[in-house]
């Protein structure tokens, strides 16, 4: 089975995310009325293949597979998918899978672009426990932010339906608005803690002489991201930011993260030694 690489495995996972996305459209059109497991199963199988792909790559590299953009993106998606599967087990949260699948599919297709995964030597450029901790926690933080954005999207949909008296608000088997709001806040808080740990770990990593940590574009971007999420958390928890604005901020922050993640990575000398 040597021809069946980890990329093939990931490709299959993305196909399943695609199938889940198509199925999600049907669920959406039906108003999320039936409590069923098809989407959860599709996404679960996708995450299983995704895990297999990452394990294969990790075993080949003998380290955590977070050494280039492809690997970083797949790790982010894996964290998002896994968190979604766990949260979807909560009562009335099964449809989280339907909202997460489109994100996994679109970003997954993007990650498959060959230029994001250049061949590297027998050993990756990065290695060591601290590097793995740095990359893994930051990417898990992005996964948590992603899931928070998904929950925020569900919140906005529920809010819109209730505000404008759409029957879907009552017919759909979605959680209450207050519960969605709480989950969004908790996910952002978890993501923020992980991001803080990841950034702190990054600062401890050895660097070439003349490479200051805080002038690297990726580090500046990450620090900005850290500030954006901190502001969202503080404004919501202590300054009375309305739930709708909080949800919009969380979605906008994650969309911004997805759109700028690769660009800042390309310009980072620390991440492209």
């Amino acid at each position, binding site marked *: 089975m040597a021809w069946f690489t980890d990329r093939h495995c990931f490709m299959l996972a993305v196909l399943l995310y695609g199938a889940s996305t198509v199925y999600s459209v049907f669920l959406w059109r039906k108003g999320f009325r039936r409590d069923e497991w098809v989407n959860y199963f599709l996404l679960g199988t996708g995450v299983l293949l995704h895990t297999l792909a990452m394990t294969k790559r990790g075993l080949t590299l003998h380290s955590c597979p977070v050494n280039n953009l492809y690997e970083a993106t797949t790790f982010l998606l894996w964290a998002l998918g896994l968190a979604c599967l766990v949260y979807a087990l909560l009562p009335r949260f099964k449809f989280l899978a339907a909202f997460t699948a489109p994100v996994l599919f679109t970003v997954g297709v993007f990650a498959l672009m060959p230029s994001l995964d250049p061949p590297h030597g027998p050993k990756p450029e990065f290695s060591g426990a601290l590097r793995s901790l740095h990359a893994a926690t930051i990417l898990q933080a992005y996964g948590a932010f992603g899931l928070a954005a998904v929950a925020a999207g569900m919140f906005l949909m529920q809010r819109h339906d209730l505000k404008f008296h759409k029957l879907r608000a009552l017919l759909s088997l979605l959680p*209450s608005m*207050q519960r969605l709001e709480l989950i969004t806040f908790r996910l952002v808080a978890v993501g923020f803690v992980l991001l803080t740990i990841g950034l702190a770990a990054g600062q401890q990593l050895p660097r070439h002489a003349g490479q200051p940590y805080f002038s690297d574009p990726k580090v500046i971007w990450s620090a900005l991201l850290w500030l954006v999420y901190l502001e969202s958390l503080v404004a919501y928890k202590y300054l009375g930011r309305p739930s709708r604005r909080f949800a919009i901020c969380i979605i906008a922050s994650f969309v911004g993260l997805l759109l700028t993640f690769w660009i800042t990575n390309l310009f980072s000398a620390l991440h492209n030694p």
Partner: protein
Amino acid sequence: MSVVVIGLSHRTSPVGLRERFAFAEGGIPGALQQLRDSGLATEAAILSTCNRVELYVATPLAPDEAFAALRQFLVTHHAYEGALGEELYSLAEPHSLHHLFKVASGLDSMVIGETEIFGQLKKAYDLAFTHKFTGPRLNKAFQRAFNVSKQIRTETNIQRGSVSVMSAAVELAEKIFNSLADHEVLVIGAGETSEKTARAMLSRGARGVVVTNRSPERATALAAELGGRAVPFAQWPDEFEKIDIAVSSTAAPHHILDRAKLEPLMRRRQHRPLLLIDIAVPRDIDPAVSELDNVYLYNVDDLQSIANEYLSLRQEEVARCEQIIAEKVAALLAANSYLVPDGRG
């Protein structure tokens, strides 16, 4: 031996006629005894509710003969002297069993899919069973009816959703708030519908009720009844800081709550979500308040249209339910244990 049904329901007769033929619970064993003594029935059960009076009888007579005798029994028993036509329906197998299954599943109820009838039918059967008026036929038929009813409720959406204004309001609250246990309800105007809505909220776990009314006596009485507290009518806006659900049904000819009044209250509430149920006509709450963030306003028409939508969804499920019932009736009639329950046929 076959099972027949004779009776009248909300579909065929007005309430005035139904109440003439109603059986008091205490009188049912006596009536069943009369049926047995007359040789009309070997087994019998009487279902008497506000929407229907029905006799389920296992009889050795031919259906037509049994119908005439049962009709006479009803008229005599209730000393009814008026004319009776289509109001009284009579059904023989398999239609009688089909009807029993429909009744048990709430398909023949005034509000399709309601579950109260299941309990009433079970009670009627238990009464007949306890007094030994049922036998193999009716036992089998009723037990199968209860099973079919459960299957229909599990496999179809026949009982899904709120079909009354009060339950629609509760469902809305549960879509906004995680649990009603953390939220207090303010009742403005101690009318009957707001009282029922408050009771429905309490039954779903609402933390408490605050009642206000122009006449303080009525507010105090209702608050005591609901286990809540009463506040003077002039002070109800002060309660907005604490409550999250308000049900309004005053007789005021103008809006008692408008955007200008609610805006500062929402600031004091730190923009926590607020569900406003306005069941007054003319309306108590200015529709413009729904433009405020985190304010969810529903008036009586909104709630009624939710209830109607649910009803029409239930109607759509009827065909599926009918199919299940037809299959189960056919299976029951084909079963040896039903046809030859005690080896005598």
